């Protein structure tokens, strides 16, 4: 098993995608946060509460949470590239116990997700505090709370990356899997929120669970107001975290089970 994890780390670190992923974490964390903080949520279209309010801070943190499709797509990309480049057969020749291969990938990408989440949350914190200090604003939440919320977002990134790995291992076709992951996480859930009746499901979907982590209801509230549908009540943060973990576990379980018997042609 240690051999397999070592091999997966070598496989990941030898690609350019790895550096691209870390760069994306810094750009989304530091870059996007400083841009949003510099412009100020009150100047968004439509305008949102300012950074000096709790809702304002939660909102821009919540928007950061929406970038979770990026690590998810990276996980999917990494796993499906084994099928696309036909190395999966070679891998299973070296390690015929396929569940071990999938488990090693999950361990490796769990660490990669942690690195991604750390960089994302770290650069976001740096950007947020620096810009607020430069503008002489005070944030609507105490720094400790902001850091705790960012840490939750960072951990959510690990879960999303593993979700992406799970979907990739299940679907195997790179293009289809990527369309599925990005399409659902980036657009699908937002569209679901607009459908009356279906939007009550939102709190238990991955996006709703992530929003629960930071208690980010602004977007959902705005949408239900706009559409005149019932307001969405998010789960408590702890329940959201548990639910997200359950999603990741389900994805990995499906990934492990589905890989075991299928023919590699």
């Amino acid at each position: 098993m240690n051999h397999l994890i070592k091999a997966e780390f070598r496989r990941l670190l030898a690609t350019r995608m790895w550096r691209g992923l870390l760069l994306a974490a810094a750009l989304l964390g530091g870059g996007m946060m400083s841009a949003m903080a510099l412009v100020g949520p009150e100047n968004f279209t439509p305008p949102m509460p300012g950074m000096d309010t709790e809702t304002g801070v939660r909102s821009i943190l919540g928007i950061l949470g929406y970038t979770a499709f990026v690590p998810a797509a990276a996980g999917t990309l990494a796993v499906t590239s084994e099928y696309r480049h036909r190395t999966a057969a070679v891998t299973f020749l070296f390690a015929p116990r396929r569940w071990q291969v999938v488990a090693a990938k999950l361990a490796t990408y769990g660490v990669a997700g942690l690195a991604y989440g750390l960089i994302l949350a770290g650069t976001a914190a740096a950007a947020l505090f620096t810009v607020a200090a430069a503008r002489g604003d005070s944030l609507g939440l105490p720094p400790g709370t902001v850091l705790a919320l960012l840490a939750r977002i960072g951990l959510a990134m690990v879960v999303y990356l593993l979700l992406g790995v799970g979907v990739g291992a299940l679907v195997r076709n790179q293009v289809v899997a990527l369309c599925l992951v990005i399409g659902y996480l980036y657009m699908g859930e937002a569209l679901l929120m607009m459908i009356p009746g279906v939007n009550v499901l939102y709190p238990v979907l991955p996006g709703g669970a992530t929003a629960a982590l930071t208690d980010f209801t602004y977007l959902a509230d705005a949408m239900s107001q706009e559409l005149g549908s019932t307001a969405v009540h998010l789960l408590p943060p702890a329940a959201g975290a548990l639910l997200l973990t359950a999603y990741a576990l389900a994805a990995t379980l499906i990934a492990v089970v589905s890989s075991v018997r299928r023919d590699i042609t």
Partner: protein
Amino acid sequence: MSDDRLKIEVSHLTKRYGAVTAVRDLTFTVEPGVVTGFLGPNGAGKTTTMRMLTGLVSPTSGAATIGGRPYRRLPRPSRTVGAVLDANAFHPGHTARDHLRVYAAMGGYPDSRVAELLDLLGLAEAADRRTRGFSTGMRQRLNLATALLGDPRVLLLDEPSNGLDPEGMRWLRSFLRQLADEGRTVLISSHVLSEIQQLVDDVVVIRRGELIAAGPWSRLAGPPAVLVSSPDADQLAAALRVSRPDRDAPRVEPVEGGRLRVHGLDAPDVADLAAAHRLRVHELVTEAPGLEQLFLHLTTDKAAAP
């Protein structure tokens, strides 16, 4: 030493994909110490069989074992079996060294083994180039290097000659010969029979997923024929046909250019007979039996049957 000599045994192997039977009740043995050619036209089921041998594809019924064990039960499979089943199984962004290092880690082999194989397969200079720019020959060498990481006793190669230039083929032939001479079991599949006929000792021929012939190539191919060119071809043919009244008469068939192909006599026999009858001989060639002929013979005979 006997422990190192591993047989491949395929017994009643069948694979169905829905209504299509890719491999049907296939039984054969591959011996160590020789190179065995696994032959058949495209779509005959060679690749499916090799993937069942290595546990990548699960058989519908029957079994395939290597040294008595199914592939998935081998304790450290890459130490026992090296397989090249795909000509192009690399991440294009990985270098040759990256690729080998991934699988060296997976098999538990040291990095020194990676360097050793890069040297052995003549890839040392290309080691740090990304595989997307590799030629077919380099890809084949990298495939072989990957398969050889664990210094396996059994080597399985699916269509290794595909896309190789004559120099690459020559190199592959001597390389595989050396491996077989070390007592390893070597099975190579091909649909381009002429390319591997100089290389194989034994053959297994399949068509439409069924076994057609198996055994030492020399026995299956039969004795060589003699090709003789003579301006007195008609008289020579008549003389040849009655030359051995006590035994099976030699078979003589005219071929284009006024030549004769003689089965059942060797070149000295034909020359002596021509001299005895004062018939002229312009050319006399011993024709090694070609796999191509054997293969066509075996497959068309079956195809003609209802």
